[in-house]
């Protein structure tokens, strides 16, 4: 997801100042994505340059400028929402590369690495469980759905390191 469409999406609700965009964006993401105000202004300027948003009226008090979505902006947003994410899967975490190197580097310690990784995933699952409950308690079902996605990913990660550990164990002569 990119900030660009996040900003367009929020402006689709009503015209906003830069600071309001930042606050609403962060609140929508429930603390999972923090942005600085500079990024918001840069994004708004680019969107304005591309004709997707436009300022409403003149600068208000303390130089604040209100932005609204333009018709091409609305169209771009609707198109984006309709597109499935079909690009390559993103594996950001170091574990993927560590795993490959652990078998190449002498004494790379693959079983120990997998054991420690498993504990990290278990702790993350516990933390995600708590976050999901907190989100539901706060009436943030949208956020709970997002956290549920993270939870299922972590469950898959856990299953994966379990499989690798079983393989490593099975391949070891005792």
């Amino acid at each position, binding site marked *: 997801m990119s900030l*660009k469409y996040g900003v367009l999406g929020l402006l689709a609700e009503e015209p906003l100042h830069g600071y309001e965009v930042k606050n609403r964006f962060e609140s929508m993401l429930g*603390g*999972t994505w923090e942005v600085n105000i500079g990024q918001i202004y840069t994004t708004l300027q680019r969107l304005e340059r591309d004709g997707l948003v436009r300022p409403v009226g003149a600068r208000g008090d303390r130089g604040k400028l209100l932005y609204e979505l333009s018709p091409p902006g609305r169209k771009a947003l609707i198109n984006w929402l309709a597109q499935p994410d079909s690009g390559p899967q993103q594996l950001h975490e170091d574990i993927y590369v560590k795993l490959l190197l652990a078998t190449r580097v002498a004494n790379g310690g693959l079983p120990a690495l997998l054991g420690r990784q498993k504990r990290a995933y*278990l702790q993350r*699952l516990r*933390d995600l*469980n708590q976050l999901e409950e*907190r989100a539901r308690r706060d009436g943030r079902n949208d956020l709970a759905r997002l956290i549920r996605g993270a939870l299922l990913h972590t469950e898959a990660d856990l299953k994966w390191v379990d499989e690798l550990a079983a393989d490593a164990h099975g391949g070891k002569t005792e």
Partner: protein
Amino acid sequence: MTELVRLTDVTKVYQGGITGALSSVSLSIEQGEFTAVMGPSGSGKSTLLNLIAGLDRPTSGDVVVGGTDLGALDEAGLARFRRDHVGFVFQFFHLLPNLTALENVLIPAQLKGRENADSRGRKLLERLGIADVADRYPARLSGGQQQRVAIARALINNPTLLLADEPTGALDTHSGEQVMELLAQLHRDGQTILLVTHDAKLATRQASRVVSVRDGKIVDDARLESKERATSEVVRVRGEEASR
């Protein structure tokens, strides 16, 4: 902390090599702990639970629960131990169909010959949120209600140890959540709980300790921190850099 369960070098061999065997397992559980035992089916996790419950005997090794060496007890002694110290919750509830919810809850208390069982049973059903179905038969209860009746039955004799073997395995997500929340509440009230599950989400929901079993051995024993973390410390949604 007081040690409640100690397994020392416990091995369980099944004739014919059926899965679920255990090999030299040692484990210590403190009073008040909520421990989850996690592993795939056939890993030996249910066997572990059955040995601690006194439902089965090890081929070799010692099982000590609450200071009692289970190996030293005869069959009658084991039955008394189970009745007085252990509450057991199963995946498929195991309620007697021709008894009402309350009557099911009271079975262990009657075996023990306790006074006032009736009023304690009703109080327990109330605490578990199912007082209104006390006089219904199991067939007229939902799965979630049946499991709560089973939990009440497990608790009626104030067991030292509550053992739960896949307690949400036969329930829909919502009822499963309620049962887990109930176990969490019991743990907060001081109940020692041992939960067996193959489900990592359930294992980590309330347990402060996750013991992983594979091929009859304990392969990991993880202590989990339960302090609340800020969302950004746990999960982040990452976007591309601001678009060009």
